[in-house]
C-alpha cells in the first residue's frame, strides 16, 4: 500500500505529466453499425392505424420493427473529448387511418357512401430517412476511442417514400342505392409530396469493445428528437378536412418522430 501512496504522490506533484492518448496512439475512427428501432411508441400512439399487407383480402398489419445503417467518422482530441459525424439511413413503414377517419375516401358525390361498418386500409408505405448529424462526443474517465462514449449532435433529416402510387382498399361501402359493395380498390399518388425535411437532435451512448489493435465491436443506443414533431396528431375524421397528401405527411412525421430510440451494433475501425 505504501507503494501506491508513493505513486499517488508522484502523480500529484509531477509537472511533466502528458499523455499521447488514443488507442495504440490512434484517435480517428470509422464505425459501421446496423440499427434496430422498435416501434412501440408508434404503435401505442396510433393504435387504430394500420396498413394492408398488399393483398385484396383486406388483411392488415402493424409495423413492428424498423432498421437501418449508420456510418460515422470520429476524431478524438483527448481520451475524453472528440467530434464526429454520423451518416445514417433508416427504413420504416407508415400506417394510415381507417376508413371512417379518411375524409378523402370515395363519397356520396361520386356515387358511394361509407358508414360505420366501412373500413379502408391503405397499402404499406415504405419510408427511407437520411440523416447527417455532426456531433460532439465525450466520456468521463474515458479511454476514447474505445470504451464508453456519450454523444450529442444536431443535424439534418430527410425522409422520402420509396414508391409513388398506393392502393387503397375500401370494404363495406354502399352505392347511392344502398347496395352493399363488399370491396373496392383504387390508387392514390404521393408524387407531389414525397419528401419531408427536418432537424434532428440526437443523444447517443456507444460502447466500443476492442478486439484487435485496430478494430472494436460496437454496441450503442441513440435517442433522436425530430423537429417539426407530431403536429395535427388529433386532426382528421369529421372534424377537419385533411387531404390525402396532408395525411401522408402527417403519418410520415408521426412515424419518424415517435420512435425515438434505437439500438445498434457494428464494428469500428481505428485508423490513425
Amino acid at each position, binding site marked *: *500500500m*505504501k*507503494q*501506491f*501512496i*508513493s*505513486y499517488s*504522490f*508522484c*502523480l500529484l*506533484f*509531477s509537472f*511533466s*505529466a*502528458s*499523455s*499521447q*492518448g*488514443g*488507442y*495504440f*496512439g490512434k484517435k480517428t475512427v470509422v464505425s459501421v453499425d446496423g440499427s434496430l428501432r422498435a416501434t412501440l*411508441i408508434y404503435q401505442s400512439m396510433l393504435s387504430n392505424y394500420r396498413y394492408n399487407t398488399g393483398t385484396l383480402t383486406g388483411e392488415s398489419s402493424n409495423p413492428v420493427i424498423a432498421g437501418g445503417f449508420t456510418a460515422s467518422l470520429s476524431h478524438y482530441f483527448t*481520451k475524453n473529448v472528440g467530434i464526429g459525424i454520423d451518416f445514417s439511413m433508416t427504413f420504416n413503414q407508415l400506417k394510415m387511418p381507417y376508413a371512417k377517419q379518411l375524409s378523402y375516401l370515395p363519397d356520396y358525390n361520386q356515387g358511394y357512401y361509407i358508414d360505420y361498418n366501412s373500413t379502408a386500409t391503405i397499402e404499406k408505405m415504405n419510408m427511407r430517412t437520411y440523416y447527417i448529424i455532426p456531433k460532439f462526443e465525450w*466520456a*468521463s*474517465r*474515458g*479511454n476514447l476511442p*474505445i*470504451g*464508453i462514449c456519450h454523444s450529442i449532435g444536431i443535424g439534418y433529416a430527410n425522409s422520402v417514400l420509396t414508391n409513388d402510387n398506393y392502393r387503397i382498399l375500401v370494404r363495406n361501402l354502399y352505392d347511392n342505392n344502398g347496395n352493399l359493395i363488399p370491396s373496392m380498390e383504387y390508387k392514390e399518388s404521393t408524387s407531389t409530396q414525397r419528401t419531408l425535411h427536418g432537424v434532428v437532435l440526437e*443523444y*447517443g*451512448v*456507444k*460502447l466500443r469493445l*476492442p*478486439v*484487435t*489493435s485496430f478494430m472494436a465491436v460496437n*454496441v*450503442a*443506443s*441513440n*435517442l433522436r428528437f425530430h423537429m417539426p414533431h407530431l403536429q395535427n396528431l388529433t386532426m382528421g375524421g369529421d372534424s377537419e378536412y385533411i387531404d390525402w397528401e396532408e395525411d401522408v405527411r402527417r403519418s410520415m412525421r408521426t412515424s419518424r418522430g415517435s420512435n*425515438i*430510440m434505437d*439500438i445498434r451494433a457494428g464494428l469500428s475501425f481505428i485508423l490513425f
Partner: protein
Amino acid sequence: MFAFSVFITTGQIDLNKFTTLQSSGKIPSDFSALTHEKVAGDNQRNTNLTEKSDEEFKQNIHYSIDQIIHSGQCVYGDPISVYVDKIAQRLLKDDKELYSKLRFYTLKSNVSNAFSTHQGIIVFTTGLISQFANETQLAYVLAHEIVHYREEHVVQTFEWKLQHEYNRENIGQFNNYSKEKEFEADSKAVDMCLKAGYSATEIYNSFDVLMFCHLPFDEIKFPSDYYNTPLFFVPEKEFTTEVFPIKIDEAYDDANSTHPNVEKRKETIRPHLENQFGTGNAFVGSTDEFTTIRNYARFESVRTSIIDLELSKALYQLFLLEKEFPDNYALTRWKAHTWLGLLNAKLNGHWTDVTVPKQKLEGESAVLYQYIKKLDKYAVSSHALRTITDALSVYPDSEELKKIRSSMMKIIAASGSWSWTKYSDIPFEKAFEPKVEENDLLVSGTIDSTSTQANEPLTKYDRIKGTGAGKSTSATAISDSSRYYLFGISDLISDPSFLNEFKGYQEEADKLSAERSAKKKAGGKTAKTSSVVGERLIVVEPSTVYITRQNYDFEKTDAYQTKLVEAINYTAEKEGVKLFDYSTKSLNQGGTDVFNQRNTMMNYLLQYAALPEATHFVPVDFELIQHIQQKCGTSRVLFSWTEYYTNARGAVASVITGAIIPPLFPAMLLTGVSKYKLCEIAFIVFDMEEGNVSYVQSNKMKTSGGNLVLKSEVHNLFNAKK
C-alpha cells in the same frame, strides 16, 4: 564499482561504507512466488475451519505478508536476519522441528515492531533492533513471536472472529481475547528464555523497550556546541532550556488495544520470574556481535529517517552515532543528505513537513528539534552550506557529495532573488570578539569525549528512569547575536570563485525558468522529439490491486500484474527497446542480486515520493543507484501502477434510471455496464541521472482494462515523446 560490496569475509559490514542492509543467499520462495501461487501451494489444512473459511484464511495470511515482503523494505539473509536466526536456534535448541519451520526476515522501518505469521515467518524491524539494550531483550521478543506461531494464535484469532461474527459491537470482547493470547505468549516466552540461559531481570526490562520505543534509540543530552567548528558558531542561547519530560505511564488505558498495557504484562510474567531474578545472562552469545547487529540497525534507521523525511530525527540519530563513529563516511553522507532535504523543504515552503510539532516533543531530542524548527531560510542555508562544504573537504573524491553540493547550489539558485550580501565575510569570532569571553569561544571538537565515556555503561532506559545523568559540555551563552548563522560561511563569501560558481547556477536556473515559461505559453506544443523511454529501460515491479465488491482479489491482482508485465515485454520487443526487468517474476532467474536492485529502486521511489517538492533530488542510495545505471546502461526507470475495482452501485443506479425512463433503458444499460468495471493505469518514468520524473501517463478509465487496453497504454508510453 564495488562500492556496495560492503560485506567482508566474516559477514560483517564495514560501517564506513554502509549503504543499506542487503539480502544475501538463495532467494526464498516467500519472496519469489506470487500470492496466488502461495495460496495454491499451501496444503496445510486448518481442521477447525470449514473448507471455505480455510481458503479465506489462507488468502488473508498470504496477502498480508506479501504486502510487506514485496514492499522493497523487507530483506532476507542480511546480518540482522542471520543473527535473529542464531538466537532462535539458541531458544529452540531442544525443539529442532519447530525451529526448522521458521524463517526470519528484517523489515527496514523505524516503527518498532516484530511479528510472526501463521506460515512461520518472523519479521523484526530495524527500528526495534536499534532499541534493544541487550541480547536478552531481543531473545524475549523473539520467543514471544515463536510462541504465537507455536500456539497457532493467528488461526485461533481468525476462528474467534468467525465464531463471534466480529464487528464493532464485540470489538471489546475481541480485544480481551487478543490480550489473553498476548499474556500466554509473554508467559511461555519467559520460560523459553530462562531455559536458554537469559537474564530474568533483562526479560522483565524488555517492556521498557515497548514503553520508550517511540523515542530515538538513545537518550543523550544534545550539546549546544555540537555545530561549532572553527568556522561556524551557534550561541548556546539558541538551544532551549525548557525540559520536555518523558511520559512514563505503564498503566495506560488499553481498552481499545489488542495488546495489554505494560503494567499488566509485567504483572503476568512476574510470577514466572519471581525466584529467577539475578539468574541468567544479559548476553548468552557475544556482546560484540549483538552490538554490531544493533549498529547495523541504527545505521539503517538513519537512512530510513531520511527516506521518510523525518529529518530532525535523522539529525539526532546522526548525533548519537557520531559519538561512536566520529569520522564515518556513511554518517557524513547522510548528514549532507539531511541538510539538503532541510534546505529543500525550507526554500520550497514545506518546512512543517520536516520539523516536529511542539506537542510531540519529549526527551533530550526535543532540544535539537526545537532548534531546527526555528531556523530561518538563511540559517538553514548556512548550515547546509557549512555541512556539505566541510563534508566534501574531507571526502573530495566522493561523487555523491559532489552531487549533493551541486543540488544544493541549484536549489538555492532556483529559490529566487538570493543575496549573499546578507552573509558576513568575516567569521563570528572576529565579528563579536569584544563581547565574547575567552572561555565562551569555540570548544575544540564538537563533543566532549569524557562525557561519552561516563555515559557508556548506562542504557537509554537507565537514563530515562533517572538511574544515570547524561553530561555534556556546553559553551557559555553569547547574548548579542541571534544572527550567528550569517557568519558561518565567511570563507565561502570571501571566495570569488564560489560566488562566480553560484552565478553560473543562477544563470542556469533563470534559463530553465524561461524555458518553462515559454513551454507553458506555447501550451505544451513545443517540438517533442526524443522518446521518453529511450533505447533501454529499467522496469520495476508493477503495483497492481484488483478489488471486487470492496474485497481484495489476490488472484486477479496477480493475473493483471502478470498481464501488465507481458504487455510491457511485448511492446518493448516490438519497439526494439531493451528491458531490464525487476518484477517478481524475474526474481526466479535473477535471484538475490536482482532482488536487492529492485529494492533499491523501490526505495528510490519512496524517498522521491516523500518529498513535497522533489527538485534536484539526490537519492540516499546514490552509490547503489549509480551501479544499477552503469549495469543497465540507462538512467530511465519505469514504475507502473494499475488499480481495478468494481462499482456495482453506480452500475445499478444507471440501470434503475433506464427502467424508470424506458426509452433510455438501452443507453443506461450500456452506461451501467461500462461503469461496473473501472481501472486506473499509470506509468511514471524517472530519470535517475536528472533526479526527476521525466514522464507521467495516468488514465482512469471505465473499462475492465484487459490485455488490449494494457497494450494500448504501454504502446502510448513507448511512443511518447518529450
